[in-house]
């Protein structure tokens, strides 16, 4: 087993939770990154564009602040080239069709006790585990 990042995981997870709670308290919105991104790329002014752009900017800024005050971002790519493009296409298509990702369904939807989010989270978790198993232990 790999040494888990216990302190970072618990503190970082709490920050993600606090961000989601504040978004609901202040804006009345679900913090689903895929959905927020869709609003930006479709330039959907009817459903609030400025808060979406501000959130995405903040997301990047948060990682910039980490680099400035904590250290280099821990980032080890696990795929490259065509595989990375295929993965990106699937994540984009899947989050749109499935109305959400790890944050929208996994963190917010489960807290809302949404049956759709339970079903989605269980599905993408199992499929991702199977995908990694096939890539790491069957094909390689």
């Amino acid at each position, binding site marked *: 087993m*790999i040494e*888990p990042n*216990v302190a970072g*995981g618990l*503190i*970082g*997870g709490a*920050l*993600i*939770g*606090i*961000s989601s*709670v504040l978004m609901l308290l*202040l804006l009345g919105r679900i913090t689903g990154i*895929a959905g927020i*991104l*869709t609003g930006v*790329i*479709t330039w959907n002014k009817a459903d609030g564009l400025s*808060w979406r752009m501000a*959130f*995405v*900017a*903040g*997301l*990047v*800024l*948060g*990682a*910039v*602040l*980490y680099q400035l005050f904590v250290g280099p971002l821990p980032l080890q790519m*696990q*795929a490259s080239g065509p595989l*990375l493009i*295929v*993965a*990106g*296409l*699937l*994540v984009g*298509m*899947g989050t749109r*069709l*499935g*109305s959400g*990702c*790890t*944050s929208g369904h996994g*963190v917010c939807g489960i*807290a*809302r006790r949404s*049956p759709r989010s339970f079903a*989605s*989270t269980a*599905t993408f978790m199992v*499929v*991702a*585990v199977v995908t990694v*198993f096939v890539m790491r232990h069957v094909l390689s």
Partner: protein
Amino acid sequence: MKSAIAALICGILFGLGLSISEMINPARVIGFLDVAGDWDLTLMLVMGSALIVTVVGFPLITRKAHPLLADKFSLPTKTELDMPLISGAVLFGIGWGLAGLCPGPALAGMASLEPGIFLFVAAMIAGQYIGIRLEKAFAR
């Protein structure tokens, strides 16, 4: 304006959370998904910690008449488990397993200036456009 500032701050908290918890690192994500390899439980700690905050916080907030900076809550209304939900979760799960990246960490990861992240984000945006087309086809 107020809601954009609120969203910016929430985005920063979320980006910091992803960085501190190392969920911005595809190696940590794949490490969690690779149950047959060197398993890394960090992702479970992150999600658990975030969920403790949202599971406690969300019901307290949705009891209010409206959010602090908006007239009403904008929450998902669908309840049925349909084909787009499940097929979307399957596609997302495959993409997530291939690269170890989901929308939040991919967007925040742009702060690292790693070229692969930009490639993934571009493909993810293209994928969302395809997903929107597919949604319309499903709706017909």
